[in-house]
């Protein structure tokens, strides 16, 4: 991604960022769970494009394969298997005090974050991984070196996290014997 005109990059970023935000909003507001899941795929794809813009090509591919591919497949399977009877649920009141308060606080919060980002001055330190260096050593190698080198302890604990998740799924889903 080096070599691309910065103005064009900025244009792609704005489009994909708007697409990601819009589709995630669509995802949470749909009544039909299948529609929600499909909108989620759009979000995942737009985020993958943002990763590409950040020179994180490996993460982008992983995002498409793992999230938009495998995980969404599972989500769709689950939706079909448990066969949610949507539409029969009690319609929630359109405007209620908690809803309005929650909406207000959320809007305020996001405006603050926006203000924070607009006022952003890069005071942080520069890391060793510049785009030029990534291009020379390869994205995958850089991630591998970090993940299995510096961050190997966190990686190991994350494996236990996944194990606990699997145990939980088995324990909670297995048949109840009486």
């Amino acid at each position, binding site marked *: 991604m080096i070599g691309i005109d910065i103005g064009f990059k900025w244009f792609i970023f704005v489009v994909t960022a708007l697409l990601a935000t819009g589709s995630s909003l669509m995802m949470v507001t749909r009544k039909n769970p299948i529609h929600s899941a499909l909108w989620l795929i759009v979000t995942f794809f737009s985020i993958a494009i943002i990763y590409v813009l950040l020179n994180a090509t490996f993460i982008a591919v992983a995002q498409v394969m793992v999230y938009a591919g495998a995980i969404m497949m599972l989500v769709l399977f689950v939706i079909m298997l448990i066969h949610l009877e949507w539409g029969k649920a009690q319609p929630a009141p359109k405007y209620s005090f908690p809803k309005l308060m929650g909406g207000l606080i959320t809007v305020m919060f996001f405006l*603050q*974050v926006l*203000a*924070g*980002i607009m*006022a*952003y*001055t890069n*005071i*942080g*330190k*520069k*890391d060793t991984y510049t785009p030029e260096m990534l291009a020379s050593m390869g994205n995958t190698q850089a991630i591998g070196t970090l993940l299995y*080198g*510096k*961050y*190997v*302890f*966190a990686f190991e*604990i*994350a494996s*236990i*996290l996944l*194990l*606990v*998740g699997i*145990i*939980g799924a*088995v*324990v*909670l889903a297995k048949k*109840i014997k009486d």
Partner: protein
Amino acid sequence: MIPASEFKWILPEIILTGWALVLLLIGGFSKGALSSRISGILCLVGSFSALFCTLNLWGVNIDIFNKLYTIDDYGTFLKVVFLIVLTLVTIISFRYTEREGIASGEYYSLLMFGVLGMMVMVSSHHFITIFIGLEVMSLSIYILCGLLRNNVKSVEASLKYFLLGAFATAFLLYGIALIYGSTGILDLVELKRYLLTKQPFAVTMFLAGIGLLIVGFGFKIASVPFHMWTPDVYQGAPTSITAYMATGVKAAAFGALVRVFYTALLPFICGWSTILWVIAVLTMCIGNITALVQRDVKRLLAYSSIAHAGYILVAFITGDREFTSSILFYLLVYTFMNIGAFTVVIMLGRNGEENTDIDSYAGLGVRRPFIALCMSIFLLSLAGIPPLAGFAGKFYVISAAVKSQYYWLAVIAVLNSVVAAYYYLRIITNMYFKEPIRELGVIDDAPQYGFVMLVCVWALFHMGIFPRMFILLAQQATRIFL
């Protein structure tokens, strides 16, 4: 590269993981009462061996695994607290899992994984490790809450805790991301050095990050206004897990909170202490006042645990590093009082029937004087009556506030503990001065419960009358912040 010799410092964690895996295998291959008992005993052996290894780490201060993990007295102190929680909860679970028909292999191994998560969470000054440790702990507890699968309330508690917890986790992660985005640093010690040289406090993004960190941790320690889940989850979860959550999770969350804020963000104390001042006052007041009207003992203890989080926050926001020891001491004391009280709650229940309404305690003083006496000691300690350890804990916390000239906060804390005395004493008067309203079932008697109660009573008296030794240990543990 990581030298292999560094693995000797994480021996307690390795032992816990290994035993948890063994317990899983046992649970997979055999079922029934015998295997349940064997798993319980193995879990106990595992937690004792981990405790032994952890005690050997006292006095060691070393950064390992490329500074992703830290062994120091602060972490070791908290690890000992978690392992004490694990041991006591395991002992009360011997009978409880059998009575309620909980799959014991998975139960004990998840208990151990939960403690593993807590240990990882408090002994690191790297945001990534802290976060992953917190997630290991939380995930284990979401599952443990829902293990009574025939009980709708337990399933509800699990789901509620999971959804809200995942939400809170997202806040915490967002906070970490914003701090990383504005400084480029994930290591707390480096972050502190950076904050001292440059002044990023004017950067809104950094401030938003701190705010979100407070939300994320505030949820885990059950402080107002992030406390809504506490009563429902504490009531619905299996009672042994409630005891585990009220003590272990709270200690772990406070441990990580103190480490993050005292290591990295202390130069910025005037910014966050005001926010936490309000949260502490709200937590104490709402916790105590709502507890006044509760008729269910488990819910009452849940609100009291919210109030206690407020007392600990009082010591926390003074920001005086010399008094950080009072937080550790309070957490240790709180462990014994709460596990003791929940043991009594377990004893009054039967399979499927919890008998947790306050009327079930009427006449207990005549029928079972020993249990009533123990319960009174735990409740009096929670209320902070000398010579019990609860008094010593409150004394150090409030004196920290007074010495740091937070006079109003100290006054509010004292007034709150007066209010709190009312609802604790109400259970005691129910036990001693009221006739039983209805016929009560048999009390679930088992020597294990008696043992745990005696240990807790002894610990409360010992730490209440001779708190000096424990305070000195806690002071040594918090020396890393000086």
